[in-house]
Structures are given as structure tokens and as C-alpha cells.
């Protein structure tokens, strides 16, 4: 087996340890599953509802992340002003906040008595305990992932292609759709995958802000948390399901990237 140039042999040891550290717990889950009951456990009504809800809300929040995050990332990457530099740490804050704290913050903003929530409530718009709340919670925690992935790509791409496009007569909007976005496509895809994966696994903020109700707000992670209380086998089976779904998403994108190269 030929070695990549420049890597000392001992590097493989900590690398292998790291891989094992991540892989073994997943293998352990698979080992703990009661395989005869596996299929019935994951196709029960509550499981199916939770899975579909998770997929729907994660897709919705990834879309929302794209709509908001792409402009954010580009503004952050291209602006030099002090205001932008000030805003940047706030955008990344949800990364370091425990998701539960994020949920509490969302509650105080959009909840019935919240900063904005109270006006929404008066207008008849109820966000708390709704599927919308789930999407908001997921978006809150996933947005920084997308912004970071994209900002890095935008920064290294630079703005020289946009400059050339401008001198060729393209208006700013045309430059955006025909040059900036296509050049960002790889970063966009990996950012969206990260955001989707994060949204799929989101738990703390959802529990605190959206509550837990089958079909409405009980996403797969919340369903696992609940099943844990009474049916450990169901919890394990559902955990494996969540791992499998996440793996499919990540692999699908990974294969796509390899194909591009």
C-alpha cells in the first residue's frame, strides 16, 4: 500500500483511533438492535410520523437557511466595513450556544409573551407548539453551518470573476445569477448538506420551543427521547434509523462530489 507523500507513519495511529471512536458507538447501536422486531418497531405509526415530520421540517429549514444564508455569507465575505465585522460573531453564536439555550431564546422572542410573539399572537398568528416552531428552531441552529461553509468558499473565490462580468455589461443581478451563484455551487451543496444534517438531528431547541406532539412537533430525535422512557428497544431501533437516514444523505452528496471531480 503506497503511502501519501509526506505523512509520517505514526500519524495513522491517532487517525485510526479517531475513526474507531466515531464508528464504534454506531456499531454498538447496531449490535443492540433486536433485529427480529426491528422492522415493526421502525414502521409503527408513531415512528413513521416522526420520521416524515423530521424529513419535512429539515427540508423546510434547509431551504430557509439557503434563502437567508447565501446572501448573509456573501455580504460577510465581500464587505470590509466595521459594521459587518461587528455582526459576524453574532451570526456564529448559535454554534456555541447549547441548543436548549437557543430554544429558550426563541421562546422569549416568538413565544406567546415574546418580544415579537406578543404582536403575532394579537394578530392571531400562533407559532409556539406548531410545526413552524420546529422549522424555526432547526433554522436557528443550522444557519451558522451554512454561512461558515459558504463564506469560506466565497472568500477564496474572490470577486475578480464578478468584476470581469461587470465590465462585460452584466447588471449586478445578472452577475449574481450567472456568475456568483454558479461559482459557489460546490460550497452551496456541502453547506446545505451540513445544514440538513444538523436540522435532522436537532433536539434541544425543538423540545424547549416547539414542544412535543405526535405529527406536529415530535420529530425523530424527540420520539427517540420519549421512547427511551418506556421502550428501550424502540429507542435503539429508531436511533439506528436516524443514523441510517443521516448516512444516506451524507453519502449521496459525497458520491455527487466525487463524480464532479
Amino acid at each position, binding site marked *: 500500500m503506497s503511502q501519501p507523500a509526506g505523512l509520517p507513519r505514526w500519524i495513522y495511529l491517532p487517525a485510526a483511533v479517531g475513526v474507531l471512536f466515531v464508528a464504534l458507538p454506531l456499531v454498538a447501536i447496531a449490535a443492540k438492535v433486536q433485529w427480529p422486531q426491528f422492522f415493526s418497531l421502525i414502521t409503527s405509526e408513531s415512528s413513521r410520523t416522526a420520521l416524515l415530520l423530521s424529513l419535512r421540517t429539515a427540508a423546510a429549514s434547509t431551504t430557509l437557511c439557503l434563502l437567508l444564508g447565501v446572501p448573509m455569507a456573501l455580504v460577510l465575505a465581500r464587505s470590509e466595513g466595521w459594521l459587518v465585522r461587528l455582526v459576524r460573531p453574532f451570526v456564529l453564536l448559535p454554534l456555541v450556544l447549547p441548543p436548549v439555550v437557543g430554544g429558550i431564546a426563541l421562546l422569549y422572542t416568538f413565544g406567546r409573551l415574546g418580544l415579537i410573539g406578543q404582536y403575532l399572537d394579537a394578530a392571531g398568528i400562533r407559532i409556539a407548539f406548531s410545526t413552524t416552531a420546529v422549522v424555526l428552531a432547526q433554522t436557528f441552529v443550522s444557519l451558522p453551518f451554512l454561512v461558515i461553509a459558504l463564506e469560506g468558499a466565497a472568500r477564496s473565490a474572490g470577486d*475578480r470573476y464578478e468584476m470581469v462580468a*461587470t*465590465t462585460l*455589461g452584466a447588471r449586478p443581478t445578472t452577475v449574481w445569477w*450567472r456568475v456568483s451563484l454558479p461559482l459557489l455551487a460546490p460550497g452551496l451543496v456541502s453547506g446545505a448538506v451540513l445544514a440538513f444534517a444538523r436540522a435532522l438531528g436537532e433536539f434541544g431547541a425543538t423540545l424547549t420551543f416547539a414542544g412535543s406532539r405526535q405529527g406536529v412537533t415530535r420529530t425523530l430525535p424527540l420520539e427517540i427521547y420519549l421512547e427511551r422512557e418506556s421502550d428501550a428497544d424502540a429507542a435503539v431501533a429508531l436511533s439506528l434509523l436516524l443514523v441510517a437516514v443521516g448516512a444516506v444523505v451524507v453519502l449521496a452528496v459525497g458520491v455527487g462530489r466525487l463524480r464532479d471531480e
Partner: protein
Amino acid sequence: MSELRLRAVVADRGVDLEFSVAAGEVVAILGPNGAGKSTTLHVIAGLLRPDDGLVHVGNKVLSDTATGIFVPAHARRVGLLLQDPLLFPHLSVAANVAFAPRSRGRGRRVARQAAAHWLKQVDAAELADRRPRQLSGGQAQRVAIARALAAEPDVMLLDEPLAGLDVAAAAAIRKLLRGVLAGNGRSALMVTHDLLDVLTLADRVLVLESGHIVESGPAATVVAVPRSHFAARLAGVNVVSGTLDDGGVVRADRGARWYGRPAGDTPPQRGQPTIAVFAPAAVAVYRDPPHGSPRNTVAVTVAEIDTRASGIRIRADQQPDGAPGLAADITTDAAAELQLAPGEQVYFSVKAQEITLHPA
């Protein structure tokens, strides 16, 4: 017909200049790094707002700080060609060239035809379906030229377009530019460091130093009788500055005297600033002070020794007034005999017949 008129003051780049380019004219901009050449191009293209000044193309006002007019870059019909072709990596060659017509709202078919036309003009029709990453440097620059021309600009700006190419590719592109650069009444402005570009492509030359124009004139004149330090260095011509004295003598700094023949067409006037111009090939190099007919002899310290196609060029230290050091071209055999090294003192000697005197 599109004459370009520019006046620009950009305070934080230290740029303050004014010039014009006639329709159909190619002007080369020379100057050391940081002189403000790229800044000038950016102001014309609309990518940079000057603190004060105006840009007129033909009878269109592109920007005027006095009236507040500022036409955005995308509406200016100013083409930009850089050292890096910057072809859009996600589009094919044909789509790249078709970019400008498509951005202007032309239909897909019309744009495709325009792309095919311009690719043919630059002799790159067979590259149409390739991707930019499959092209060599020369091919990419060829496509970039087609793309810029497809935008039908009134003014073409080039920023060292041949600098990244090897000699053969550069020669091919140079030939191409000769054919297409200033067609259609377009004016063109080219920043370059290459004498060959100046000689083959430029009608006029502007020399920029520290944000100001220090020399301006027809390309042939500037190259033959450069009046700015940078042009002298680039053209490889020796220039000594001083004042014209009695007897056709130029008194340079520190009293050195240079005898020469006054230029026929524009002779210098007595008492006026004058330059003595002579070719490096006219300079003889001696280890000891020579005795003989040459009346122009000066002691210099060797700074650089370079090989040339025709022999060896010995360049002396910078002249006291900041002008580039004098250069002497000698044969390889002669250089071997002299066994010179940087730092040694030698004597440069030039026949008065070989020196022409011009007004500064």
C-alpha cells in the same frame, strides 16, 4: 468614433493625471509598480470612483465629479483584459464569449452566432466546446480577447495581458492584438512592462511615476529619446540630464561635461535643460583612464552585469540625479578580458559623434 478623455485625482493612491486617447489610437502606459497604472484603468472602467475628475468617451459622459454623474461599470462599454484571462470556469468557451451579448439581453441564437464570429476573429473557433480548464495560457487569453470584443466596447483596457505567457504564446497574442485592438474606431489603453509591446502595438506612450504623468509622446520617439527615468530604463537607452552650455556641451550634475551633436529637428537651446542620449553599444569600457579622441569619459562603479543576445551589458550605479545608471554593451570576449565584477570602478567612454543632444 470614441475618443477617451480622462482627468482623475485619487487621493489615497496619490494619483493625479489628465490625458486623452484619440479614436483608433493605442496608448501604452508604462511605469514602475505602484505608479498608479491599474488605478487609472479602474477609474476608466468605473470600478473606482475618483475623488475628483471626469471620464468622457466620445460624447458620452461616463463620470464627472463636478455634476455628480457616475455611469455604473456595467453600462460603460469599457472592455477589460487582464493578465489572468479569468474565463468563467463553469461555462464552455463558446458560452464565455457569448456572455456579453446574453447579458445585454440578446437571444440565445444571436449570442451563439456572435460568439462563433468572434472566436473565428481570434482564430480559436475549434476551441468553442472546450472548458476553460482544458486550455493553455495562450489559448485562454485568446478566448478572453474574443469575449471582451464580443461586448463591442468603445474603449479597450489591457493590464499586462501578455505577462503570464511564454515567448511563443506572447508573440502569437501580440500579433492577434495588432489585428483587432483598435478596429472600429475603438481606443485602447495598455499597461505593459514589455518593450516589444510598446514597439509593436502602441501609437503613443504615457509614462507614470508616483501617480503623475512624467512623459508622453509617440512610441517611437519615447523609445529612441526617453525623457523619463522609467522609459530610459525600459528602452535601454542612456540618458544624461543637464543644461546646455557654450560650445554644445551639456553640463550635468557635479560638473561632468558631455559633448554631442544637437538633434537636427529640435535642437536644444543654450541655457535650457538638455539631455544627452546615446546607445549602450556606443560606450567603450576601460579599466584605466583612456587617452585618445573620445571626449566623453566618466568614472563609474559597476552595478550589474547581464548577458545579452549580442554580448554583455555592463550597467553602472544609478546617476547622481536618480536617473538609471549608464549602460555599456560590449562583446563577450572583451568582457572576458576585462574580468569585471560588480563594485569595481571602470571608465565609460563615448565618442561625441555618438551622442545626440535634445531639449529635456
